[in-house]
């Protein structure tokens, strides 16, 4: 009697499994796994579910299919932390076979995730205020959906100064991480042309809720305007405290990089008086794609979408447009298709710069409405201008995006 070795048993088992479950194996090989890295805990815990909504809507629009193949959408909670986000992204790439990922929401965390994308050679789309993803740390696999911090700063400063030419003494409140530093740099740069004097620039940690100390310093500087370069709960807490100290509405307040609706609805109309807002998306954007998306989103969730779900929605559509253009689900093909991609989406015309992976697109400048002019509780602001001035070449830090 022949002796059956352990190795033979394993081989036989593997063969039996292959014969027994061919349908499963075939289905798995055809699935396109896309990861949504959205925070459910940590500083951006409130934003992750909104990102997820937007991404799902974009995938459901296409019937969860692309190029005739089913899409498997998986999500992971990055906990707004670089360590957790990179670990879970790697686990999804290695364990679930994800080759395409979108997120996370924090710029500082996204920079770490971008390194994972580079190392693992997976397509990565991100929206945020750091310039490094399409700048000093650019590579072939990461793409930036949000406007360049320069585009944002130029749109906000130019349009605010057009309406308030005498407000030349600015005090800045800046979130102390990658996004805040990038936008601050360009607000100061663009401000030179307008003769702005920055009488103070204080940085606060992400997740700050006690702004009295910062606002007291701002008030002591007697500025003509206060500009905040922060986001989400930080921006809401800052705006509220600036109002409590009696600065607004006498002194105009500028939110340079706002989420739009999601932040504005948290502020009472009195606090929104004399509030000027720069944002990557506002739901009254006059584009066919925005109108269709806003209608569908409001029908589903009874509120207008802000920047978070809209960015996730549009990034997903951008990725799917890359598949369409490439006619392939292979990573190198999709990367090449996304480079130089043109599409008309919710913000208007968008073009992906092949040399930097920065999306060139409009940025929105809003002015909040007084309570008496609001038609309903979501009639918060008017879009007073859009701007799409790209980052001048001399500031560009992405000199060579590298190879695949």
């Amino acid at each position, binding site marked *: 009697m022949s002796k059956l070795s352990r190795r033979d048993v394993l081989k036989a088992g593997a063969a039996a499994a292959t014969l027994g479950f061919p349908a499963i194996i075939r289905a798995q090989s055809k699935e396109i796994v896309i990861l949504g890295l959205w925070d459910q805990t940590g500083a951006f815990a409130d934003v992750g579910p909104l990102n997820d909504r937007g991404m799902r809507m974009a995938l459901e629009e296409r019937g969860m299919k692309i190029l005739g193949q089913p899409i498997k959408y998986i999500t992971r909670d990055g906990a707004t932390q670089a360590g957790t986000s990179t670990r879970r992204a790697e686990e999804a790439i290695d364990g679930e076979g994800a080759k395409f990922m979108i997120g996370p929401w924090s710029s500082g965390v996204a920079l770490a995730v971008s390194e994972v994308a580079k190392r693992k050679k997976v397509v990565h789309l991100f929206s945020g205020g750091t310039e490094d993803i399409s700048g000093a740390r650019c590579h072939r696999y990461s793409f930036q959906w949000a406007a360049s911090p320069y585009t944002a700063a130029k749109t906000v400063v130019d349009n605010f100064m057009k309406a308030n030419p005498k407000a030349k003494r600015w005090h800045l409140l800046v979130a102390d991480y990658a996004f805040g530093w990038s936008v601050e740099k360009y607000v100061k740069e663009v401000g030179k042309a307008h003769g702005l004097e920055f009488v103070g620039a*204080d940085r*606060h940690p992400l997740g700050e809720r*006690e702004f009295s100390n910062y606002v007291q310093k701002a008030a*002591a500087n007697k500025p003509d305007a206060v500009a905040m370069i922060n986001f989400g709960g930080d921006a*809401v807490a800052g705006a509220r405290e600036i109002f*409590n*100290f009696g600065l607004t509405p006498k002194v105009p307040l500028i939110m340079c990089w706002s989420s739009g609706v999601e932040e504005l609805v948290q502020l*009472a109309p009195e606090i929104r008086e004399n509030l000027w807002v720069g944002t990557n998306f506002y739901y009254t954007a006059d584009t066919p794609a925005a109108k269709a998306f806003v209608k569908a989103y409001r029908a589903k969730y009874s509120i207008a979408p802000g920047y978070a779900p809209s960015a996730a929605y549009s990034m997903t559509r951008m990725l799917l447009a890359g598949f369409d253009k490439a006619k392939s689900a292979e990573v190198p093909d999709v990367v090449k298709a996304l480079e130089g991609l043109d599409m008309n989406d919710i913000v208007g015309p968008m073009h992906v710069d092949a040399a930097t992976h920065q999306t060139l697109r409009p940025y929105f400048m809003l002015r909040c409405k007084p309570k008496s002019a609001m038609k309903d509780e979501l009639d918060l602001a008017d879009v007073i201008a859009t701007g799409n001035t790209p980052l001048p070449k001399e500031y560009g830090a992405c000199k060579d995006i590298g190879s695949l």
Partner: protein
Amino acid sequence: MNLLFGQILNGIATGMLYALMGLGLSLITGVLNIPNFAHGALFAVGAYLLATVSGYLGNFWLGLLIAPFGIALLGLAIEYLGVRRLYAAGHDYQLLFTFGLALILSEGIILVWGPVGFSHLPPPILRGGVDLGFTFYPKYRLFVMAAAGLLVVLTYLFLEKTKYGAIMRAGIENKEMVSLLGIDIHKLFTVAFALGAYLAGIAGALTAPIRGLSPGMGVDMLGIAFVVVALGGLGNLLGAIAAGILIGVAQAVVAAYWIEASTAVIFAVMALVLLVRPQGLFGIR
């Protein structure tokens, strides 16, 4: 110099709120001997109740009066229906219970009031600021400083000068002895928990117009409350008051010169004090 005076004032106002939180937590921790992880959530529910009641009645002052009593009743129910049943089970179970309760209350806020935060303005008479000569300061913060200061003093007088306060302090020192003297120790626990919850609730209600309302608003405050208790000395009520004000002022003064370090200073002060006096500022254990 004007900025420094302004920041000290600011620190006292914030410190008074920290003291209220720390006093409530110290009372519960001292008498019941359990770390109440739900203290931050009670603070948050207090803020939300104020917004709801004052919005419904159209009167901020009635809201400020009623909301903290709602939290006291909630505290009473928590002790009577939950914590009490776990005294025999030991610390781990009590700790897990209050931790779970904190999660339930936080999720309850999302279910009842929604995940998106909102603002609640101070009453019209307290909006805007006043010029104090050396600084321009919000009227509402001055009111909070006075109200929280008064509450701290009243709580301290209750605990120091009344018979029931003396029993409570005795409960902190030696529960078994109080029980042997024929005092209903369970009733004492219930009252202490309700009073601690009331202080968290009113701190939340007073904070609502300053910081607004969001489901996670209790988390930051819970951390600070524990720092206050550790710094003041476990179960030491005077220590909690002093530690609350010390942290508030240290945070504000550091902010005047090195604003990036204003949060870190809370923990730096705690580490420094505990290195020199491991039992806290006024603690004996």
